[in-house]
């Protein structure tokens, strides 16, 4: 069976992987034939933290996450299961209790236990929540590895822009077209909205973290994810906006203040990169599978791309090849 996938972010690549596993012939149409730096996945945090996300996400995310994490454990080169540490500054301690009330899968850690988990933070924080079952990965490394694997398995990449505007019906010889364009599909999925996120990559040799750390804040959920070679990713703002190109001074200030509040050593870190993207989201912030003819759209990943993409890909493949309707994510099924 011939499958054409549009988009090479984490959704597109996971779908390609799932179809190839079922011996389909897959071609990916994307803005780039290599790692695409113009999609959300390029800027992702790579936290696999269904427990923490449960604070505001619907239970469906945890279901999808459990499947996806099994996938990443075998596929992602630097999958690290070291948990997540959630802290708050002394003035924001009530937020830690709120967070505990609205989440599951944590246990409280104090003083010496925090020091053992993250020696550099032991002196800074006396109370924290530890989500031991959570993991993280490096998104760019993972996507790049996935692309190599797919190419080895005969997946082809075509560098092309799809014009399926209102006056131009897009057609293809493939048996199924899998539309994984994210916000790029907004003209065919008008309910899709953008949630702008800004993030930073910084470098510091002065501080070491072994796992993602979330710093609770009354307005923005902030996190720092350690990467290889003393790199850290700080993310991310959540602004109701489709804007994809402009990081504001205020957002960057807030992100950097969070890092600085976490540990003053970040004050001397080098800023390597400031990123901006708009996450594709439906009104309920949950991913959806939509069928129109032989086009299947996998979209609305919101801030859960890596957490949901492998599980959505499996559902997509089972629908296309076996006719199994995944009612929990299938929002439209127009033959």
């Amino acid at each position, binding site marked *: 069976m011939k499958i054409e996938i549009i988009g090479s972010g984490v959704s597109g690549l996971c779908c390609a992987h799932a179809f190839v596993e079922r011996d389909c012939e897959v071609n990916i149409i994307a803005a780039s034939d290599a790692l695409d730096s113009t999609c959300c996945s390029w800027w992702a945090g790579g936290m696999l933290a269904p427990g923490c996300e449960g604070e505001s996400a619907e239970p469906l995310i945890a279901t999808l996450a459990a499947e996806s994490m099994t996938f990443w454990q075998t596929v992602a080169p630097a999958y690290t299961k070291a948990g997540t540490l959630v802290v708050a500054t002394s003035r924001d301690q009530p937020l830690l209790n709120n967070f505990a*009330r609205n989440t599951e899968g944590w246990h409280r850690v104090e003083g010496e236990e925090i020091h053992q988990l993250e020696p550099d933070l032991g002196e800074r924080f006396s109370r924290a929540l530890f989500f031991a079952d959570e993991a993280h990965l490096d998104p760019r490394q993972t996507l790049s590895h996935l692309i190599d694997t797919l190419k080895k398995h005969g997946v082809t990449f075509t560098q092309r822009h799809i014009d399926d505007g209102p006056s131009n019906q897009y057609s293809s010889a493939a048996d199924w077209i899998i539309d994984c364009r994210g916000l790029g599909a907004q003209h065919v999925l008008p309910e899709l909205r*953008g949630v702008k996120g800004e993030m930073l990559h910084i470098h510091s040799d002065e501080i070491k973290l072994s796992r993602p750390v979330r710093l609770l804040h*009354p307005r923005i959920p902030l996190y720092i994810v350690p990467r290889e070679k003393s790199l850290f990713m700080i993310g991310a703002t959540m602004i*109701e*906006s*489709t*804007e994809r190109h*402009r990081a504001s001074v205020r957002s960057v200030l807030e992100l950097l203040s969070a890092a600085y509040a976490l540990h003053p050593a970040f004050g001397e870190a080098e800023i390597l990169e400031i990123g901006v993207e708009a996450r594709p989201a439906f*009104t309920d*912030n949950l991913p959806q599978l939509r069928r129109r003819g032989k086009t299947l759209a996998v979209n609305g990943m919101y801030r859960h791309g890596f957490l949901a993409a492998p599980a959505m890909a499996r559902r997509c493949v089972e629908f296309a090849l076996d006719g199994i309707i995944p009612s929990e994510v299938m929002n439209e099924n127009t033959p």
Partner: protein
Amino acid sequence: MTPEKAVPNEALNLYGSEFTSRFLIGSAQYPSPAILLDAIAASGADIVTVSLRREAGKGVDKDTGKESAGQQFWSLIQQSGARLLPNTAGCKTVKEAVNTAHMARELFATPWLKLEVIGEDDTLQPDVFGLVEAARILCAEGFQVFPYTTDDLVVADKLLAAGCEVLMPWGSPIGSGRGLNNPFALKALRAHFPDTTLIVDAGIGLPSQAAQAMELGYDAILLNTAVAKAGDPVTMASAFAQAIEAGHTAFNAGAIEARDMACPSTPVLGSPFWHGTGGA
């Protein structure tokens, strides 16, 4: 003289428009727009505040060609049927607030404006000097200003002189959930301005605190965090709606004065004397 039925709650009047609900709800920090819409429905609110300082982006979005990058979220809120009250949340200077107000009028085609000029980062306390100045400028330009202010009487007076017809004093700092920090001051404000529409804005954490403000004779409540960050925002919105209505009805019904000594609610006269003597 006691009416047979409770006095029907008269409508809330804001700059000449009448509303049934006395609950104004904020639209930030919900888990998803879908939950926000459900919470608005459960709250029964006729008015929803929206911020635009960060969402607006710069004019037309490059990619979509849409008027503004946050338009889609605002359209979603408009689906609820509620009237939008744009706010200048996050503005720290008069100039910034005035510019944001102009942007709001253009985007939402409404003269309504919740005016916030923040003076202090830790408490998000209003800069009352900047607030009065911005209110004066905006009222003169035809805006119908809802100023977020402290419970200070003199500031309230200056805001009215600037042309505001509605005042929105804080209960306590934004998002703190501490309720009414100074009921005495809020009472004094109510007594000084019996004919002005007064809305408690900010600091409410519990329905009982909203009811308390309404029992003091406040005309309405504006809140956001207490609903948005609740474990179940939709159910909490409904709890607040009931509390606000109960508080308002109680105020209209006229509460008794508190007293130090017990006062039996059943007349004792005529009770057999041995009741209360421990038996025959």
